[in-house]
């Protein structure tokens, strides 16, 4: 997958880049939210790993822009932040993130998120209807098409 890492803190960028590269994915990095948005707008990004607190556009705003955008493919978003209060987690997920990782991250935590991300991007790529693009949680998007048993 092609994974965009957005973080203004350099050690977090390097750490995430090393983890994601070792897992065999292509990485692109952005040092601030506005640069990340430029890269997202040009397309071709499968997963966004984004910090919360960044100059310019912060992580939740980036999530909202992605979900309100008109790109052809679904971007799986993981907020990676040191903000660990439940209200932050809820706000982040509500802004459009698919998952939430509290720093410092480790390889296992990133790997498990990327397994889910790969499955989600494959599903949405093969889905005949419009891509899930609302700010609702991903599970809600799918449950409207797939009745539970």
């Amino acid at each position: 997958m092609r994974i965009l890492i957005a973080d203004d803190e350099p050690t977090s960028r390097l750490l995430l880049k090393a983890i994601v590269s070792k897992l065999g994915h292509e990485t692109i990095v952005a040092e601030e939210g506005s640069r990340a948005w430029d890269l997202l707008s040009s397309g071709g990004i499968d997963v966004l790993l984004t910090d919360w607190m960044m100059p310019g556009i912060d992580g939740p705003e980036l999530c909202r822009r992605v979900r309100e955008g008109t790109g052809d493919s679904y971007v799986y978003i993981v907020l990676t932040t040191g903000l660990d209060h439940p209200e932050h987690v809820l706000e982040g997920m509500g802004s459009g993130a698919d998952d939430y990782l509290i720093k410092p991250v480790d390889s296992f935590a990133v790997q498990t998120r990327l397994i889910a991300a790969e499955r989600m991007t494959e599903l949405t790529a093969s889905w005949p209807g419009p891509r899930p693009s609302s700010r609702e949680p991903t599970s809600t998007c799918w449950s409207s098409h797939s009745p539970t048993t």
Partner: protein
Amino acid sequence: MSDLLSDPLNRSQIEFLLSLDDGTGEALQDIVGEYLTMSEEGREELLRVLHDGDASAVEHAAHTLKGASANVGASALADVCADIERHARQAQLEDAAGLAQRFETEFSRARAALQAVAPRP
């Protein structure tokens, strides 16, 4: 006394950083090297805003240093930064000098330990 004798580094995080490449230690060198540069700037900023009593700026500076310190296994320093961040969030900076002193102590210990683990070429 026990605090002074405790290891300033979380060695399992150091082992984790060493596992991120093919055994060359390049990832550890890169990440710790970047930390040693950014944390010096972060220290100056944190001490300045602590002195000024700017709670919002203290919270942000401490938050950034907390995350970066945890990334390189400087757990004792990360704990002090978390404490400063909490004080700032609650606008409790009456003991700014005490917080700064605790920060300086752990900052020096962390840097010395990290320079030993990943000496600059």
